[in-house]
């Protein structure tokens, strides 16, 4: 990556933060239109995005953020009040900022945002119209220096003979000699300017000769320290436009008397003489720095002002994710070698030495704390995710003509960054579903005695080592009969299926399922809840639906805290050690004679609390051995697949529960069905981590069969 590319990438990273600040501030402004801090923060966020966008030539983003910024400036100066329609407009503009940043980041064709796009143009127009001076304010961002014509206004002075349009073509003709008269006013020095660098800059144009005009210099005793007494005559040999010379004096144009003439003209001198009186009436001095005194008072008033009450900027650094992952890997190795050390010491009987034991205990504790802390680096609060979702709700409400309020809780909940990124799509889909299919129209709601405005509640929190997210709506709930008849109609279940409520809800996750009578353009996009489920599953999580007809629906997602460590049950199977993730594990038991039932020539089921559960030998499932039909007395792990199906896995021995560091299988192995990853055990052996869902799919046909037989 070149330096500039990495800066560009950094800009988009910064945009994430800025957009988050923007959303935050928008919400604060909505709560309190007079929250000046929030308005300022909002303005700064948009302004910073514009600045960076300009640097990378992202014109569509510059144009839009400039327009947005104008409106925000009006709000900042209280010319416009951010309420009602204006507030709605601000939100729309905020949403568009997200779109534009995303589109620029993906390097989409900028033509998409050209002004002939009706919707975008309309939004820009609406923003311009909302500005206090709705004639447009200014003409758009200026891209460059626009040297202004010299306008020297000095009371009592005759106007200097300077062509107003600066360097016209005529100026360039012929002569290659310029005569410049430069009289600094005292403000020039006060602002930190100095004639010397200006002359140096002029010397870049051509050779020059500088003569001081000391005629205004008073006797030493009459000099005032901060006054300007010198005038300079510059003879510049260069074939250039007057404009080029004037540009050198750009910063000091208002703080000097400047005359630029072609060739050797004496008239300048007389002009200067004329300019004299009011100038000369002022006392004289050398440039200020020579006389500057050292002040012992370092604490400036503004420094004191800035320090009061305002929050310090969040201290953070940006670190490449690869580096963090490398750390996670290394600390994983550390934990493993600690376990190996423990084990070999205990086997060697060294544990009798209390000093060794104590030191080892400390090492263990440090290693595990280190691991925890490093995992926390990858964690991010779900706040930014929630903020993005508030937009989805606004848009979905708008598109469906429903009034919806989003309530969020637990924004500070931290989740692995990868998880957050990959949650955006499923959450979007679930929210759209909740609004499209869950929340009723205002009329229906009122008829049902509900408030016309629906509420969608999105919460996040940690619960027993997992991240739990819930999306709850107070809509109509899921009509089980409708779902079931639809599923039958679609051939997903046999017509005479007798399903429990939960099983019916699970049908919603089946590919191709849709209960909406008309496929709306909102959630009915051909992606269903099945995609949601598979995405959550691929993150090692689960989705669950609960609903009460007429009162609403809750979708619960549970996710592992991290993708780097998994809590699992270590088991022995056919001489191999395997890890079954605890997230899928429901209970462990021993197969008792009375529970085991044969089903056909091959299959076994266990009867448990009135239900029949298909049995698989874990050893056979991974191809280590033939399935044994004699499982009497064998340990059984009852696991639940993500689809909510229970299966029983028989193993030789249960070794215990442990947190293991996930090591991806090398790509050399390709996809090994039924195996998710590997880990290294304390004694250095490799243990494979079982993928329960794939295992269930492997045994798919058998499973479908027994399932059909079981539910029939």
């Amino acid at each position: 990556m070149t330096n500039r590319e990495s800066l560009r990438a950094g800009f988009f990273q910064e945009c994430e933060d800025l957009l988050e600040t923007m959303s935050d501030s928008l919400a604060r402004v909505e709560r309190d239109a007079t929250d000046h801090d929030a308005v300022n923060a909002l303005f700064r966020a948009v302004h910073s995005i514009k600045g960076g966008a300009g640097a990378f030539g992202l014109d569509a983003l510059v144009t839009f953020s400039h327009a947005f910024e104008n409106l925000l400036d009006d709000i900042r100066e209280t010319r416009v009040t951010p309420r009602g329609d204006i507030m709605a407009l601000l939100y729309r503009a905020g949403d568009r900022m997200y779109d534009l940043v995303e589109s620029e980041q993906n390097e989409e064709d900028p033509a998409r945002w050209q002004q002939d796009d009706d919707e975008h143009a309309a939004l820009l127009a609406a923003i311009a119209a909302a500005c206090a001076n709705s004639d447009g304010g200014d003409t758009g961002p200026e891209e460059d220096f626009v040297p202004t014509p010299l306008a020297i206004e000095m009371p009592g002075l005759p106007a200097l003979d300077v062509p107003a349009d600066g360097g016209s073509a005529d100026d360039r003709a012929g002569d290659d000699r310029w005569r410049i008269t430069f009289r600094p006013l005292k403000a020039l020095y006060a602002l930190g300017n100095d004639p010397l660098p200006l002359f140096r800059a002029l010397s870049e144009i051509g050779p020059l000769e500088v003569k001081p005009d000391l005629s205004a210099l008073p006797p030493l005793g009459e000099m005032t320290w901060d006054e300007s007494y010198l005038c300079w005559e510059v003879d510049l040999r260069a074939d250039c436009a007057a404009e080029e010379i004037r540009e050198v004096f750009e910063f000091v144009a208002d703080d000097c008397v400047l005359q630029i003439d072609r060739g050797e003209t004496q008239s300048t001198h007389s002009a200067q003489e004329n300019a004299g009186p009011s100038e000369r009436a002022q006392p004289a001095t050398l440039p200020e720095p020579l006389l500057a005194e050292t002040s012992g008072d370092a604490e400036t008033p503004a420094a004191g002002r800035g320090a009061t009450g305002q929050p310090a900027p969040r201290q953070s650094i940006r670190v490449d994710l690869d580096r963090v992952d490398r750390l996670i890997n290394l600390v994983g190795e550390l934990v493993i070698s600690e376990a190996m050390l423990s084990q070999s010491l205990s086997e060697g009987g060294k544990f009798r030495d209390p000093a060794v034991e104590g030191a080892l205990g400390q090492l263990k504790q440090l290693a595990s704390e280190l691991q925890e802390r490093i995992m926390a680096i990858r964690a991010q609060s779900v706040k930014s995710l929630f903020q993005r979702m508030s937009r989805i709700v606004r848009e979905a409400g708008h598109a469906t003509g429903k009034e919806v309020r989003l309530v969020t809780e637990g924004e500070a909940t931290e989740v692995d960054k990868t998880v957050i990124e990959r949650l955006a799509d499923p959450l979007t889909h679930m929210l759209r579903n909740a609004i499209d299919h869950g929340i009723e129209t205002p009329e229906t709601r009122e008829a049902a005695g509900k408030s016309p405005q629906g509420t969608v509640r999105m919460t996040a929190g940690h619960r027993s080592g997992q991240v739990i997210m819930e999306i709850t709506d107070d809509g109509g709930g899921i009509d089980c009969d409708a779902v079931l008849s639809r599923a039958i109609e679609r051939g997903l279940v046999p017509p005479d299926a007798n399903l429990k409520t939960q099983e019916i809800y699970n049908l919603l996750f089946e590919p191709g399922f849709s209960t909406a009578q008309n496929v709306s353009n909102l959630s009915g996009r051909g992606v269903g809840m099945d995609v949601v489920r598979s995405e959550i599953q691929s993150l090692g999580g689960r989705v669950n639906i609960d609903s009460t007809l007429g009162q609403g629906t809750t979708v619960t997602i549970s996710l592992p805290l991290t993708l780097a460590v998994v809590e699992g049950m270590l088991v022995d199977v056919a001489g191999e050690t395997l890890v079954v993730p605890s997230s899928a594990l429901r209970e462990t038991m021993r197969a008792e004679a009375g529970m085991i039932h044969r089903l056909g020539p091959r299959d076994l089921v266990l009867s448990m609390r009135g239900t029949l559960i298909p049995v698989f030998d874990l050893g056979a499932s991974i191809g280590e051995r033939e399935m044994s039909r004699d499982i009497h007395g064998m340990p059984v792990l009852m696991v639940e697949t993500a689809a909510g199906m229970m299966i029983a896995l028989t193993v030789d021995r249960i070794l215990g529960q442990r947190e293991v560091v996930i090591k991806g299988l090398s790509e050399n192995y390709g996809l090994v069905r039924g195996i998710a990853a590997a880990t290294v055990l304390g004694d250095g052996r490799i243990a494979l981590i079982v993928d329960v869902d794939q295992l269930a799919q492997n045994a798919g046909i058998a499973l479908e069969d027994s399932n059909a037989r079981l539910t029939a």
Partner: protein
Amino acid sequence: MTLKILAVDDSFTMRGLLEQALHEAGFDVDLAEDGQHGLERLPESDPDVVITDINMPRLDGFGFIEAVRADRRHRGLPILVLTTESAETLKDRARKAGATGWIVKPFDEEKLVDAIRRVAAREI
């Protein structure tokens, strides 16, 4: 001796761009994240030229310049304002606060160096 520049900007991206451009031009660069931070950095940094953004949290560019100028030791210190607008009112306010000159974003390296050259007391 290389020229030392203190660049004050709250935007991570702009700081990066400035640092890169100034380094390539052969300057020493110090960075500060807002006006307040700039004031804190100033004594140690002891720059030849200061470049500052206007819109910043805690202490904006105007306040920063005023504070620098209020310290008599820094009366002659050249301070360039980085601005996205070349609006006259903005330059006016910056001048009133005590700014030496301005650089309009997006700057290119040549213009940046050019602006610094026009205000730096020591030769580049």
